């Protein structure tokens, strides 16, 4: 059960030839897979391709009808390995994951797949998480394509082009017996657009049928001497086959005039940004008709020498728009020109920045500067882009004023109390060596918690404390989420710690889902999943690999308990790794699941208790100690209309979900008595109401008695 339901989008996957598909790029790709007669699909969630996995998960009925197998792979490595089905069998397979992080994990399987080659089309859809909004290290998938010799598609970011790329990708893969990578950037994945659909195609050979007559060819298996043959095949047969296919089927595109003084060569993914720059410079119209010749590389690996040299023919200089570094394509083109003794001057990262996202502003500047030197006639007399902010005004005090707003824990997040407890422990025992992992819990590195010093990869938190396994004055602590745990943490981190007799402490943050990627189910999810096997406790797995000291906490909001358990883990004489499993459901998913149920229950007149927290503003002294242990979005501040008070007091808005963290922290940290929890009882029973009225009367009487004998100043005092 993902954070978002795609039932509506899934209906669009059914539409047939001639009908109009409307939606996100990533959904268009999903539809294209079905139109291409794919036999099996899989992958691992992660922005920007989570939606693809979620849609497939919600679309299993349709997939079933077509005889398409959907596997929610445990890791990107499992996903890539699954493509083995296309090695001996003529079945099309596709897997998707976030790149480059996912590609890093998958590279072992990808390299083996690429060596033996494929019979059925094998498509690897990589969501290139690069530039604004990215959550990972800034690298290029291009390197993986080159090192394993996998062809790399980088289509123009509009729905028809993405759909075509999927179909081309399968054909190219089959024509050259080579797996193909389809690179889609984050904005292309989320772009809303339209394309005309085709009918879905059932795979000619389903994976089920394939099992009837198993096949094997020893020469496809990566082992000497075959492995040496594979390398020769790559350059002698597969490469030429790919080059011919790409050229003959015109996968790359040319726009604008045939000839010209200059030309621009660009990755397909850069098309819209380049066109926008040309439009603003008066060198292209709204429909993309260009005054400058454009050579669009929808395939960025392999490059087609003949096409490139043909494009350069008769031009004085060409500009290459290649996002990211190193500038692999520029280097390759440079070599081609040198070998061809060509006189055209090739520019690229000399006019465009050597690193970083190529945004609209960057592109306008880059192309302007290039043309200023290469073909000034193309520019207005002013020699500058007219649309740059007319008055390039900056507001200095505003720059100082606006606070940074990095992502953080959601309202009511069950991970917040865990790190509040950790911070309390560190206040007592001083700082520890703490290694973080990948997942929502990585937000702990930022204020107010500032816990965790490194993040080495998914499921590798505890492993990244390996050097400290020998122990010392203070035990090292590592954090890992349930997602990372099942991704590969069980072996790479836990198994590693057990085997090496680690003395360290491991905190497993279990929120019932792969939460950061959108709340997909995993092995230890508590939900009943009709098509997947869930409810496998993490604690059992830990004991299974030999962890002796395991503590299961079933309510992370119990800050005192988490704190004391962590202190015990840091001090116990027990040998081997000390593992704490802190479990509470991701609040985002819990709310999504329970809100409608609750609303219905209230509607049906059932008794429902809704908790919410509040702050007594006259008790709160505005020291904000609670916020330094929370950072919850619903815990804000407000000014009192009282000139006797200097600082804003804490205040909780209606978005509070009553998770309990505020009260628990106030208690555990002995903060202040300002917090209260109000439990509002909907559809309370008659007896309950009577009791409430009774105590209200007594309490009211006592309050009046006191009020009568003293001066009261209303609420203002």
């Amino acid at each position: 059960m993902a954070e978002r339901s795609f039932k509506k989008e899934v209906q669009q996957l059914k539409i047939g030839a001639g009908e109009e598909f409307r939606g996100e790029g990533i959904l268009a790709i999903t539809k294209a897979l079905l139109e291409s007669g794919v036999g099996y699909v899989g992958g691992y969630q992660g922005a920007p391709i989570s939606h693809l996995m979620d849609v497939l998960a919600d679309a299993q009925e349709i997939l079933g009808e077509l005889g398409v197998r959907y596997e929610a792979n445990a890791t990107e490595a499992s996903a890539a390995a699954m493509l083995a089905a296309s090695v001996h069998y003529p079945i099309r397979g596709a897997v998707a994951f976030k790149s480059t992080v996912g590609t890093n994990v998958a590279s072992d399987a990808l390299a083996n797949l690429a060596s033996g080659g494929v019979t059925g089309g094998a498509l690897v859809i990589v969501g290139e998480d690069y530039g604004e909004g990215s959550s990972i290290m800034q690298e290029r998938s291009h390197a993986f394509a080159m090192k394993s010799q996998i062809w790399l598609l980088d289509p123009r970011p509009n729905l028809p082009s993405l759909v075509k790329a999927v179909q081309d990708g399968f054909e190219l893969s089959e024509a050259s017996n080579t797996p193909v990578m389809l690179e889609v950037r984050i904005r292309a994945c989320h772009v809303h657009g339209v394309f005309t659909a085709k009918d879905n195609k059932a795979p000619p050979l389903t994976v089920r049928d394939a099992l009837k007559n198993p096949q094997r060819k020893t020469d496809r298996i990566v082992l000497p001497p075959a492995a040496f043959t594979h390398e020769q095949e790559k350059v002698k047969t597969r490469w030429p086959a790919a080059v011919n296919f790409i050229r003959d089927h015109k996968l790359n595109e040319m726009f604008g005039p045939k000839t010209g003084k200059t030309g621009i060569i660009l990755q397909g993914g850069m098309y819209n940004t380049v066109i926008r720059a040309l439009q603003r410079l008066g060198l292209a119209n709204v429909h993309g008709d260009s005054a400058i010749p454009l050579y669009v590389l929808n395939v960025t690996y392999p490059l087609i020498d003949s096409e490139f040299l043909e494009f350069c023919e008769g031009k004085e200089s060409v500009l290459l728009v290649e996002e990211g570094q190193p500038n692999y394509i520029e280097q390759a083109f440079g070599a081609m020109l040198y070998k061809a003794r060509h006189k055209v001057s090739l520019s690229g990262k000399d006019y465009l920045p050597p690193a970083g996202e190529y945004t609209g502003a960057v592109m306008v500047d880059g192309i302007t500067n290039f043309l200023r030197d290469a073909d000034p006639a193309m520019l207005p007399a002013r020699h500058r882009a007219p649309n740059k902010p007319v008055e390039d005004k900056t507001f200095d005090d505003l720059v100082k004023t606006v606070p940074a707003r990095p992502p953080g824990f959601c309202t009511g997040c069950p991970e917040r109390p865990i790190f509040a407890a950790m911070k309390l422990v560190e206040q007592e025992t001083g700082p520890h060596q703490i290694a973080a992992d990948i997942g929502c819990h990585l937000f702990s590195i930022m204020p107010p918690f500032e816990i965790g010093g490194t993040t080495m990869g998914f499921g590798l938190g505890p492993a990244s404390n390996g050097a400290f396994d020998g122990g010392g004055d203070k035990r090292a602590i590592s954090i890992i989420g349930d997602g990372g745990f099942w991704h590969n943490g069980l072996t790479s981190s836990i198994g590693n710690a057990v085997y090496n007799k680690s003395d360290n402490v491991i905190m497993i943050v279990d929120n019932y889902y792969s939460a950061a990627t959108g709340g997909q189910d995993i092995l230890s999810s508590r939900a009943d999943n009709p098509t997947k096997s869930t409810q496998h406790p993490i604690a059992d797995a830990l004991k299974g690999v030999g962890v002796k000291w395991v503590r299961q906490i079933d309510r992370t909001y119990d800050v005192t308990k988490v704190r004391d358990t962590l202190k015990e883990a840091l001090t116990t004489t027990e040998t081997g790794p000390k593992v704490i499993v802190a479990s509470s459901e991701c609040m985002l998913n819990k709310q999504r699941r329970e809100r409608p149920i609750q609303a219905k229950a209230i509607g049906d007149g059932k008794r429902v208790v809704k908790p919410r927290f509040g702050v007594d503003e006259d008790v709160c002294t505005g020291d904000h100690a609670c916020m330094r242990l929370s950072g919850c979005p619903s815990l804000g501040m407000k000014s009192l209309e009282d000139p006797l008070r200097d600082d804003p007091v804490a205040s909780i808005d209606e978005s509070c979900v009553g998770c309990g963290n505020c009260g628990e922290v106030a208690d555990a940290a002995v903060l202040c008595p300002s917090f209260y929890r109000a439990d509002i009882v909907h559809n309370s029973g008659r007896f309950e109401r009577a009791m409430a009225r009774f105590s209200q009367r007594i309490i009211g009487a006592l309050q009046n008695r006191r009020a009568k004998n003293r001066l009261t100043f209303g609420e203002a005092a």
Partner: protein
Amino acid sequence: MSSSENTFQAVAGQDQTKNIIKLAILAVGGQGGGVLSDWIVDVAERNGYHAQATSVPGVAQRTGATIYYVEMMAASDRDPVFALMPAPGDVDILIAAEIMEAGRAINRGLVTADRTTLISSSHRMFAVSEKIVPGDGRADSAVVLAAGQEAAKSFICFAMDKIATETKSHISSCLLGALAGSGALPFPAESYRETIRASGRGVSASLKAFDRALDQAKTQEPAQNTDQIAPTDSITVPTDLAGPKVLVGKYNSLVKRIQSLPQPAQEIAARGLNKVIDFQDLAYGGEYLDQLEKAAIADQQAGGEAQHFRYTKELAKYLANAMAYDDVIRVADLKTRGTRFQRVRREMDVDAETVMQITEFMHPRATEFCGLMPHRIGRFVESRPKLVRLLDRMVNRGRRVRTDAILPFLSLYLVSGLRRWRRALLRHHIERAHWLEWQARAQKALTTDYALAVEIVLCRRLIKGYSDTHIRGLSKFDRVLAGGDLVAGRSDAADWLRRLREAALLDEKGEALDGALATIHSFIDDTPKAASA
């Protein structure tokens, strides 16, 4: 390679995208920026426009700043090529779901006076960096409001969160309404409503919010900065006084005494008087005024006239706070009042009939219990660590008190009843000694350095909070004043004390304060005269 024959004759320097409407949305993850951009695309398509929306949510969805981008153009036989991201100086409409996000947009150059309609809600969602400051770390919305007026072609800004709450809807509906009201898009309001209806969820609430925001956007009065403290003089002392005639009479005679105080201090003194009476009793109010009158005389002698009697005024404020210290009795008193129960129901938005349980989170320790003892016994206990540890073991634990139930309420009610004997209790003796010493220190300075005296009074602001926070506050207070002693006698002593106090309010551990103190030492230590002062 495939090639399209369509070419274009260059018109150097003439922007070809004039007919494309470019709209960017800056929101905070969880505010529904995605819903809003979907709605806008739907409205555009309803009106026969080509529209393209894209975004880079990723983890930013988790409460971080996030951006959505929409381009649209009247449909023609051929599709336009739209951009995937906003470019500085090339945005027609900028929608910010929170005022600081509007500021962020301006900083990113996405708002320009030649073309951009800036639509923003004026409310604040505080960033963590603002909330964790022990003092007041809030960014000033006024700066954004001023910049917005200057940076944008037109600036529509009002409290949309208020509308959202009142209509039980979401900020996204209000922003859509404001967009419709701004007239920045060539679409009739009804087509927006159709879009909302088609969305199918919470339609009636969304429509209410939409229409109210639409009207307010049309009748746009200049954005007001809602969140800052109103200036002192604009506030009048509350008059809803109630109580037995005798007490009211005595109260009025106390109020008369305020007239004799320097005029600038009177309003604050009146409020302070209410505060200390509310804390204890009328006699306590008398004690408060006695001290103020003494201070006023000293102020007069020190030439306070010229200083608008700042000394007396600030003392009136901080003495009231010092005398109304946060002890167990006060907390119990505030928590058990009828007015408080009403306020909770109001804040939780529940009527008097609905059953509501209230749980308080108390965590008393030995210190608080000793504070409740008659001061001699209290001191006796406190001077015996073993005894304190024993007591602590007995009492130190979190207590959840259900103040809506009779017995737990009664227990707090009785504690608040200890008010009668408060003057005899240890905590009172400690606090009293502290504020007397503090005043003495200030008055001593008054004779030589007026500004310094005022600054010493202001340092009282550092003491707030409970338990550890309170202790930390006290130690900051002491360290700041000690730092003040180091520079006493210098012409810039007051200025230094202010710097120290402000530094102390910057972070919890007091690192900024340590820095400031180090600076003082750096220039004190090599001048023995000042150091010995």
